[in-house]
């Protein structure tokens, strides 16, 4: 074998750490991601071990009503004399579960629809996009209320209802990305090589469309948590005895002038969760974008 005009110098190239090891290093080097990881870990811990670590029974109305934060009740008590800290800790489970599973469901459904519509075009695109337009015409929350009214209340139905309401956002973003990516030369190259439609979508188009989808997903988690709160407030969510952040927040409304802690702390919990997921989402996006990746 003759040596063809070969590339002369092997330029310097440090050994790269790949996979999750690299993600770990990225998180360590990125302060925001680290904060996000620590915060989210605390919330996940609370979600998993909620009943074990909460100082009191969240539904025990044994204390004085509307007590401000004190040593006995670090976050105070509510209008029925229940310990707010215990309610928040136990509520983490439902809120996080609703937030994450809703977005996961909406993402899978929406991205699938969007990719199929963008890739195949024609009548597939028409059918999907007219449906999306229809859904776009209504506020997400109205759709969720309607779906719960049809499906009935309960945790699973709330998740299904909110995620269906979010499907259009994901479908629209995914379709837009596919429309631009499918004109790339590497897609033409994959077709020339003989790759199937599924392989082109899965291996060539989707990995290059992740960034905006991840951003949308992290933003949607907060809307999902708040959506569950709103549904619960209207009596269309989970049972009133189940403590969820949204429910606690909406119950606090009547007492907001007398008991600031009832509104502030559940709001803070939602905000910190959303923030930590956003930070981690940003890190994940950077991690997945190999072009921007630096060596950590």
């Amino acid at each position, binding site marked *: *074998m*003759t*040596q*063809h*005009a*070969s*590339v002369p110098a*092997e330029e310097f*190239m440090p050994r*790269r750490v790949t996979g999750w090891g690299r993600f770990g290093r990225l998180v360590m080097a990125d302060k925001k991601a680290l904060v996000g990881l620590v915060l989210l870990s605390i919330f996940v811990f609370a979600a998993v071990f909620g009943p074990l670590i909460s100082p009191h029974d969240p539904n025990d109305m044994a204390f004085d009503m509307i007590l401000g934060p004190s040593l006995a009740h670090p976050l105070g008590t509510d209008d029925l004399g229940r310990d707010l800290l215990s309610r928040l800790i136990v509520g983490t489970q439902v809120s996080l579960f609703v937030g994450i599973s809703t977005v996961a469901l909406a993402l899978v459904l929406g991205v699938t629809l969007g990719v199929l519509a963008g890739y195949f075009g024609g009548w597939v695109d028409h059918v999907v996009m007219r449906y999306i337009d229809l859904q776009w015409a209504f506020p997400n929350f109205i759709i969720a209320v309607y779906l719960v009214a049809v499906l009935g209340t309960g945790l699973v139905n709330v998740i299904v209802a909110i995620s269906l309401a979010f499907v259009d956002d994901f479908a629209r973003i995914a379709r837009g990305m596919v429309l631009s990516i499918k004109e*790339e*030369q*590497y897609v*033409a*190259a*994959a*077709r*020339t*090589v*003989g*790759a*199937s439609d599924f*392989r082109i979508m899965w*291996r*060539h188009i989707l*990995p*290059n469309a992740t960034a905006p989808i991840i951003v949308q997903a992290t933003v949607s988690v907060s809307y999902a948590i708040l959506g569950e709160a709103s549904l619960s407030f209207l009596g269309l969510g989970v049972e009133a005895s189940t403590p969820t952040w949204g429910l606690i927040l909406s119950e606090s409304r009547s007492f907001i002038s007398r008991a600031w802690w009832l509104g502030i702390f559940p709001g803070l919990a939602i905000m910190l969760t959303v923030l930590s997921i956003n930070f981690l989402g940003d890190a994940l996006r950077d991690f997945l974008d*190999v*072009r921007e990746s630096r060596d950590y």
Partner: protein
Amino acid sequence: MTVAAEMDRPTSKGPAAQTEGPLLELRGLSKHFPIRRGALIPRTVGAVKAVDNVSLTIRRGETLGLVGESGCGKSTIGRCILKLETPTAGSVHFDGADIAAFDGPQTAGFRRRVQAIFQDPFSSLNPRMKVAEIVGEPLIVHKMEPDRNALDARVRALLDVCGLSPRLADRYPHEMSGGQRQRVGIARALALRPDLIVCDEAVSALDVSIQAQIIRLLEDLREEFDLTYLFIGHDLSVVRHICHRVAVMYLGKLVEISESERLFADPQHPYTQALLSAVPVPDPEIEERRDHQVLKGEIPSPSNPPSGCVFHPRCPLADQACTETVPELRDLGDDHKAACLKAGEPPTFQPTTAPP
């Protein structure tokens, strides 16, 4: 010869390969892109005639050059041959069979035998895939190397053939130079041991020094693997260097086709003459004395081409007949064809070209 042996692992060639006749034949190929107007009810108001009634053949083992200005339809022809576009009219025959009539397995066989090298080494490689995945993909798609280690070895052999260190296998495209990326693109095209490779402006985006390396590589590979190339380009000196025959296109039409040296020495179509006179001669003294033929005007819109010969508004030789009659591709002897009513008459203008 270990690398060659590695490359020569059994590669079924799809439908039984013939040895007679041209490898590829275009018969009256046309590709028109409709122009649509109207927001609610789109209606077709016209068509961009990107390729209009082009017939040509590519013989086994030859390199056919396809040249012309940007927008003349040469890349569209390449895309039609690769089955990336469906022709509006006419057909593409590969090894005697119409590629539009292929069913699933036949298409897979066709894909195995016809590959492409694309123009832009920065957008023709998926930024999310490592070099090994890019080069190995054709082998995985066609299930030609189920064994992981064998696949790995074969990818490394392909990289080696294309002058790349196997150490690059773990890299992403953005970690390499333009020349290295183009070599990756070539390795991918070579993976299936194809018969025909469509080189769509394969060196146009590269630095001149890198161009020379890549052209040498393409020539070496042509010898080693009995390849046939369709070399689409606009750099005439490159085309002259690598091609056996050259076809010239203007506004979607084939205007002249001939054996390479003959075309450059004795161009018959006035457009070809103008094109050749635009190539600078790397000798200031000759360049000084040269008679340049500069074309007047702009390329007409391919959605509304001129009547008769599409070149007549810019042609120094055009007369009344040229505005009325569409010139057919005429054989001027010795396999030299030109689509010009005046072709064969003594040339009024003799371009000075660089010595070969």
